[in-house]
């Protein structure tokens, strides 16, 4: 008995996690990834990493300060965030996120302050209109590797918890088979680290001296992330195709019939391969590799969140209803977040001795 069913009347549920959510997950992921890249120099004192780690610190701060703004915007009324602290439901990963984000950002702020104290004192000693302010923030200007390492552990704990909760928060949504796969948090994390490396490479070209990749093995690390991206992607596909993992099989079954999803998968795999090829064979093209890695990290989140919400839970086919609005719930939100990120970055570059001694001497 062959059957064909055409849905004549049904409701198409709108995307309710808006592009703000994509921006948040993208930026907080980049911040966590960048923070990890700061540790080789600031916590472990590997000299070859100094340039990369200093740029990564800027990236961690700019992304970390911008990300929560996108998250608040997704609540439609930012003041509502207070309810996260007044009425927390600790059975929800999202509720834990409200505590992990400040833990991470607080740890990152402390870590940054301890790192910059000596340079803030040098700036103060150099005189100028802001010398008093720098002296106050330097608070003696002591350089304590031990204290930095303690702050690094605090920030690392926060970063690990943020990475964990952002992945788990999405993974536990059983109602969306595409999200409900154990590999999703891993994919979020790897692409975040890859995007962070990409951001450091872009910052190196924009505001650095172009030598951050030297000695720091940034490109080798980027290549490793792309191999992991491809390996995890292949494992996801294999688990789904063979049916070894029912959750992955369900996820694959939801997207496999769609040509749009097929193109997306080819696009993602192709981007990873191009990034890998550039990182390994064409180091001079590291800016392009970095930009593609950044694009892949963003696209992955866009596809998972916006694309994932286009799959009906009960209805037939796909909604295919989403058109990026030009207003604050769409394009304006994306551009606004990007604009805020640039503004925060400019302020950080302008007021912080991020480049260390070289900046102060200059």
């Amino acid at each position, binding site marked *: *008995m*062959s*059957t*064909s*069913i*055409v*849905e*004549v*009347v*049904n*409701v*198409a*549920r*709108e995307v*309710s*996690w808006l592009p703000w959510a994509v921006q948040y997950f993208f930026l907080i992921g980049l911040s966590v990834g960048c923070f990890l890249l700061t540790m080789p120099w600031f916590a472990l004192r590997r000299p070859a990493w100094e340039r990369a780690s200093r740029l990564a610190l800027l990236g961690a701060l700019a992304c970390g300060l911008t990300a929560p703004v996108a998250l608040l915007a*997704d*609540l*439609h*009324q930012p003041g*509502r*965030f207070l*309810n*996260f602290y*007044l*009425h*927390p*439901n600790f*059975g*929800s*990963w*999202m*509720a834990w*996120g*409200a505590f992990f984000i400040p833990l991470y950002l607080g740890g990152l702020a402390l870590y940054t302050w301890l790192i910059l104290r000596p340079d803030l004192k040098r700036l103060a000693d150099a005189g100028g209109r802001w010398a008093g302010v720098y002296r106050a923030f330097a608070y003696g200007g002591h350089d304590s590797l031990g204290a930095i390492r303690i702050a690094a552990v605090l920030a690392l704990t926060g970063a690990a918890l943020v990475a964990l909760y952002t992945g788990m*928060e999405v993974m*536990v*949504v*059983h*109602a*969306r088979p595409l*999200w409900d796969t154990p590999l999703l948090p891993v994919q979020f994390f790897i692409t975040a680290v890859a995007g962070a490396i990409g951001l450091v490479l872009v910052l190196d070209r924009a505001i650095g001296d172009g030598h951050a990749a030297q000695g720091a093995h940034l490109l080798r690390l980027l290549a490793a992330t792309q191999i992991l991206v491809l390996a995890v992607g292949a494992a996801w596909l294999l688990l789904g195709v063979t049916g070894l993992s029912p959750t992955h099989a369900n996820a694959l079954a939801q997207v496999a019939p769609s040509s749009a999803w097929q193109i997306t998968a080819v696009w993602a795999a192709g981007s990873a391969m191009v990034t890998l090829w550039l990182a390994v064979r064409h180091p001079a093209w590291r800016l392009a590799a970095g930009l593609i890695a950044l694009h892949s990290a963003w696209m992955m989140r866009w596809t998972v969140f916006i694309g994932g*919400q286009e799959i*009906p*839970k*009960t*209805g*037939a*086919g*796909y*909604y*295919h*209803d989403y058109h990026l609005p030009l207003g604050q719930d769409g394009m304006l939100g994306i551009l606004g977040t990007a604009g805020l990120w640039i503004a925060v970055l400019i302020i950080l570059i302008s007021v912080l001795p991020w480049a260390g001694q070289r900046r102060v001497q200059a």
Partner: protein
Amino acid sequence: MSDDTLFQSRRAFLRALPAITAGAALPLNSASAAEGKHHWAMLVDVRKCIGCQACTVSCIMENAVPVNSFRTIVSTYAVTQEVDGHTQVGTYVLPRLCNHCDNPPCVPVCPVGATFKRDDGIVVVDGDRCVGCAYCVQACPYDARFINHDTNKADKCTFCAHRVDAGLLPACVETCVGGARIFGDLNDPKGELRRRLDAAKRTEPNAVKVLKPESGTHPNVFYIGLDPRFQGRVEGQAALWRPSEHGG
């Protein structure tokens, strides 16, 4: 009888009308289930649904549901099938609403505990506490929740809790033309809901079904005449009619 007396009695009659309406509904729920705790549930007899969408409209009117949003809708499908060499074409209608699950996935994910299950089984949202994060919207396996554009908070069917608390039936039940929706107390063995459920089970052990039973949500919306092809995500061609393309 003087005109004045007539006027008074007419006024009294008109004043009493709501109470009479409420009284007509009472035997179905409150009165008959006076003892013990209520466990509200709904039975949808798909065989009796004519797809008129009266429930959809009455729900919108009763609950001031914004344009292009729906707490309940009757999904309508055109089904073509080959049976014994003959092509049969027909329409299948399936009323959908919040399933007021006994194990509701929307409740544990709420970061602020705004969505909860009342003692009588109705799953509701505390609008004062809801932050509009839409986590519950994602977690609902039935696509029954949405963000209300007027309040920017989570919205869903409440079984018309405000009416039920007043001893009335949900608006969709009250207006159902075919009598396809039966609302009542699962704990009331003599109530119509329980009797209809038991009668259906006696006739055919698998007659009563729920949507997506494999999801472990234990819905309190039951269906008679539910075709298994429509029990989960429907395999077919996407909707021909979208509210957003025609309304608002």
